[in-house]
């Protein structure tokens, strides 16, 4: 395994940003550190990058201590900061050539510009690039030294769809080449699409750890979920089915009954007579969004979300 974090605690004065986080990340896999803003994702990653000393606990990157062995690690770890880090007047090709000079066997600058779709913008000052282009350049910078480990803090923030596709394609190649990729995000869609392994973090603690299938598996077969226009009255549907129907969020519903063909047909018929469209019917697995909401919202707040709001 390329990264291991063991009971990591990071405090700033009275603020305990990270409170005993443990997880591992393997080579050839993309591990996503998922959590709401302020959960402790960046502090954790910054420890692995060698910036933040641990208050207690420990971490290993390629078997080395990220703080003590920083000098050895910095040629083997590629990083992408959440924001900044690049002079506003510098041009993409110039920046990549500068950093290429720091490594013994860097990637070819022009090829890298092509891969990150920045060739056309290679002579544009950084401050005049779009948010997505700036992020792609920052990713290119992380890749220039052929790192074995990539630490990416919110890599797709502010990117349009094309940019995200480009980044996903690059990350897929790197993963296939055996790199260990750890990225943080609060974007569930991003996590659901890319992660081999998810670590959900909240208030500085790990609240879930596993593959997407593991996290979204439902042990009970006595319920199913679907999405539909909010005009649906769950009580009317529930009365017809003879089972509880709950609104779990805007346009999201849960039926507490086994998803038999008859029940599903009854739901579809109920919606059809009201001119409503049935969408995203799920029987075996929950949506990551629902799991995430359950994991990261306060226990006392959870019933409210499924109750009488809206």
């Amino acid at each position, binding site marked *: 395994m390329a990264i291991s974090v063991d009971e990591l605690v990071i405090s700033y004065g009275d603020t305990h940003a990270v409170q005993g986080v443990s997880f591992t990340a393997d080579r050839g896999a993309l591990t996503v550190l998922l959590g709401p803003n302020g959960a402790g994702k960046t502090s954790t990653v910054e420890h692995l*990058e*060698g*910036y933040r000393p641990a208050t207690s606990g420990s971490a290993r990157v390629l078997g080395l201590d990220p703080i003590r062995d920083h*000098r050895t690690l*910095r*040629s083997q*770890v590629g*990083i992408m*900061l959440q*924001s*900044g*880090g*690049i*002079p*506003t*007047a*510098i041009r993409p090709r*110039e*920046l990549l*050539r*500068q*950093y*290429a*000079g*720091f*490594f013994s066997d860097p990637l070819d600058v022009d090829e890298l510009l092509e891969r990150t779709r920045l060739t056309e913008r290679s002579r544009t000052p950084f401050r005049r690039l779009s948010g997505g282009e700036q992020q792609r350049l920052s990713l290119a*910078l992380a890749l220039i*030294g052929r790192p074995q480990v990539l630490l990416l803090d919110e890599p797709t923030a502010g990117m349009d769809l094309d940019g995200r596709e480009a980044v996903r394609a690059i990350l897929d190649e790197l993963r296939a080449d055996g790199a260990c990729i750890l990225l943080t995000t609060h974007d569930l869609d991003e996590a659901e699409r890319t992660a081999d392994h998810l670590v959900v973090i909240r208030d500085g603690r790990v609240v879930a750890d596993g593959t997407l299938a593991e996290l979204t598996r439902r042990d009970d077969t006595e319920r199913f979920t679907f999405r539909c226009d909010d005009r649906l009255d769950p009580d009317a549907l529930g009365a017809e089915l003879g089972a509880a129907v709950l609104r779990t969020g805007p346009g999201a519903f849960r039926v507490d009954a086994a998803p038999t063909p008859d029940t599903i047909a009854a739901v579809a018929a109920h919606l059809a007579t009201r001119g409503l469209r049935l969408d995203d019917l799920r029987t075996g697995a929950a949506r990551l969004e629902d799991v995430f909401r359950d994991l990261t919202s306060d226990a006392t707040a959870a019933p409210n979300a499924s109750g009488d709001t809206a």
Partner: protein
Amino acid sequence: MSAFTSQLRTEVALASRQGEQLLVSLGIPLLVLVFFSLVDVVEVADVEQAVDYVAPATLALAVMSTAMVSLGIGTGFERQYGVLKRLGASPLGTRRLVGAKTALVVLTEVSQFVVLISVAVLIGWRPPTAGWVPALAGAALGTLAFAGIGLLLAGTLPGLGTLAAANGLYLVLLLTGGMIVPLDRLPSAVAAVAGLLPAAALVEVMTGSFIAGRTVGAQAWIVLAFWAVAAPAAAIRWFRWE
């Protein structure tokens, strides 16, 4: 290409794109040199022509503008934008980063000196050969002192704060450092305090080295040496990378 040259090349490219910094490091010293050499406002008893005093004082001004103002402001914004933080995670290393910044300062000062000395000679300055060794030693000490001050500001204040403080300090030291107005023209209390600051000390070393019949007082060397050690030490002690 080595990591050092790669960094230095970027430093030079970025510095050459900073028009306002070029103005401070070359435009203002050049303006001061030409204006005060040709317009008869500086009265110095022991020199035949104004340029004999103004030229060495302008060299001191050039050192201050590059080592304190340009270096300080540039580094301050790099710190604010996380550029230093990002470089810290690369294999460049602190030593080569500091080395590249030092080389940029020296290269800039060499260009300033070439331009300023050429223009001063055109105006009629004839510096004695014996003055060069102490003057260059003074320039080296002054560079250390002012770079230490610039980096101390850059490492403790936000980018705009550094900009304001470095420019403000530049103006104060320009006026009280004997760079335009000789120190003996200032109120004696101001002159006494100014004499303990690196600007006046550097000006005394420069003018003392080049003006015939003058010598550099021990106090100027001591003050300059003190700042050359204390300012970088303070910068190392208090500089925060982000």
